[in-house]
């Protein structure tokens, strides 16, 4: 939702599939994954406590957390889909729609901001061909967003590519980084 100008977060991530072809939903909590989940549950006194780890499993399997993913997770843990959705929308690392093959997050909070983080963002936008923040590139390969403090302020500017954590990224390093991603 949220169509109006909002204080935070650059371009609001729009709730469509962004021109991505959405594959039919594949069950996540079966076989080995289900066993792993049940093992995790043993660490806590409630099933609900593994909701965040379970959602990570869904995102790791499917690249994002779809509504079907929320329903499946809710069923497995004995929660309602609405409850799960409330949790998914709270935590910014869960994608609520498909994203590019390489999800690039550039920290622009103040410590990195004063070290030129915005130039790094622009460099990524240019190199990846993404027209704006949060909108996947036409070839489906890249989505670039600004992110809040990644906790690596002394190694400005940190950038995450999916779960890969890059440190000390400067604008002149960006062409190589993106080039490597394009080739893989």
């Amino acid at each position: 939702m949220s169509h109006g100008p909002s204080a935070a977060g650059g371009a609001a991530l729009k709730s469509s599939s962004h021109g991505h072809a959405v594959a039919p939903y594949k069950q996540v909590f079966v076989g080995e994954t289900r066993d792993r989940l049940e093992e995790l549950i043993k660490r806590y006194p409630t099933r609900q406590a593994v909701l965040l780890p379970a959602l990570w499993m869904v995102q790791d399997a499917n690249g994002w957390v779809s509504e079907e993913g929320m329903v499946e997770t809710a069923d497995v843990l004995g929660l309602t889909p609405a409850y799960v959705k409330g949790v998914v929308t709270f935590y910014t690392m869960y994608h609520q729609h498909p994203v590019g093959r390489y999800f690039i997050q550039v920290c622009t909070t103040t410590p990195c901001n004063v070290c030129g983080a915005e130039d790094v963002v622009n460099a990524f936008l240019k190199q990846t061909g993404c027209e704006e923040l949060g909108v996947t590139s036409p070839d489906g390969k890249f989505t670039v967003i600004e992110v809040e403090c990644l906790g690596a302020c002394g190694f400005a500017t940190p950038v995450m590519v999916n779960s890969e954590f890059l440190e000390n990224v400067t604008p002149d390093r960006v062409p190589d980084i993106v080039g490597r991603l394009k080739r893989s």
Partner: protein
Amino acid sequence: MADTPLVNLTIEGRQTSVPAGTTILEAAKTVGVLIPHYCYHPGLPIAGVCRMCLVDVEKAPKLAPACATYVAEGQVVTVHNAKARDARTGVLEMLLINHPLDCPICDQSGECELQDYTYAEGRADSRYREPKRFNPVEDFGGDVLYVPNRCILCTRCVRFMEDVAKEPTLNVSERGDRAYIGCFEGKDLTHPWSGNVVDLCPVGALLSKDFLNKARAWELDRTASVCPGCTQGCNTIVETRDNVVMRLKPRSNEDVNGYFMCDYGRTTYRALNRRDRIETPLVADNGGMESIGWELAIESAGNVLRGRKVFILASPSLSNEALHLLKRISAISDGGRGAFRVERGDEAPLAGVEDLALRAERAPNVRGAELMGFRESDSPLTELTRDAVLIVADHPLRANDITHAARAAAVIVIGTTLPEGLRNVAVALPIANMAEEEGTFTNLRGRVQRFLQAKVAPGESRPSWSVLADLLGALGESAQHYTASSVFAALAASHADFSGLTYDRLGLRGLPVLTAQQAAGAGGVA
């Protein structure tokens, strides 16, 4: 509970003693101090998020949220000093920065807590110069519309669905000023008690689709009543405008319905407005029905009934008073009998409140009918004999009832409508419905509760007890009744279960009938 220690504190200069574990906000109520609040509700778990109830507690470094702070011995609490007022003004200003200026088109206007508190303590102007946040209206399913722009995120609705209805179908989605109340598509608000979120919403964010744009809050007259939907007997408020019932809302009663009523009960208001009423007494004439005056009508009815066997089909939606008088009619007739049918539906409990449900029996006075000696039967007219006069007392008739009724020697209708297809109706006497007269119902737990008159009955209809009292008079009974309370007093005098009850004692909360044991002990006979 008796052994909970009391705590003494001072609120706004007034001393009070409350049980330990009471919050400051509740304690303030005992000395007549209303601490402004939004998210707190006595029927919901404490949230403490709106920050409207911040009060100044002596010696505390920060303002304390009164809804979430427990009383302590010797506390001195101030609600209306500059510090606390300033905080409230701040909250109000913050709530209004994204709030649309919708009052002219918002249903909540006139009963809106944001309006009320802003009028009292808010700013006269807005300092907000930025574009307001906008989200489109959403249909939450059931009867509920959600207008996100007006939402103050008090989360009462979320907490109701989660902790009272025990079905978390509403959530808070997103974070920060992007947050809104969400549900999951395809799994929306069809819970049988979900309409309560509309009542709970302090502003016009959650609205009833049924009531949308129908009336203004200040146009409505409000009358205390009881829901006629089922045997639970939820206490209600009947809201009328120009003699039309616009809606029903729950009235709190700890012993019956907490703070809530079900969606089905809310829809019963429509029946109270039906227009296909008998508005004058009618008498059979040349194959049709002819309007006549009351005196003649009562006389005619009396003539039909006198000395005859009577069979009374008494609706379980009639008041105790009416049923009592009907029973008298049955008693003075030789071989008089009475029965009723009650429609049933699915039971729908409100899981988070003890002993509260939409009951399977969809009539408000089944227990009253039973106590008066009427029998429940799915086919109540099977035992109607050819020599009996059938009194249809506002009881709905099915096709096979009509067939059985044809057997009767004569039919007298005492009701709000004239049932279609019913032949050999000798006399029809129009009565008020439960919104148009006062009376009492007895709920499934034996609680006797008063309902008051909320609107005027159409045409020449009269209260049910008044018509029946006149009819009894025509049949030779000496007691004359000019008020419903007089009928109730007669009922209490003659029926051990009701002994000792009076309208005054019943008040607006009701009282339970005596148990059989108590009745036996009181020396009465059921």
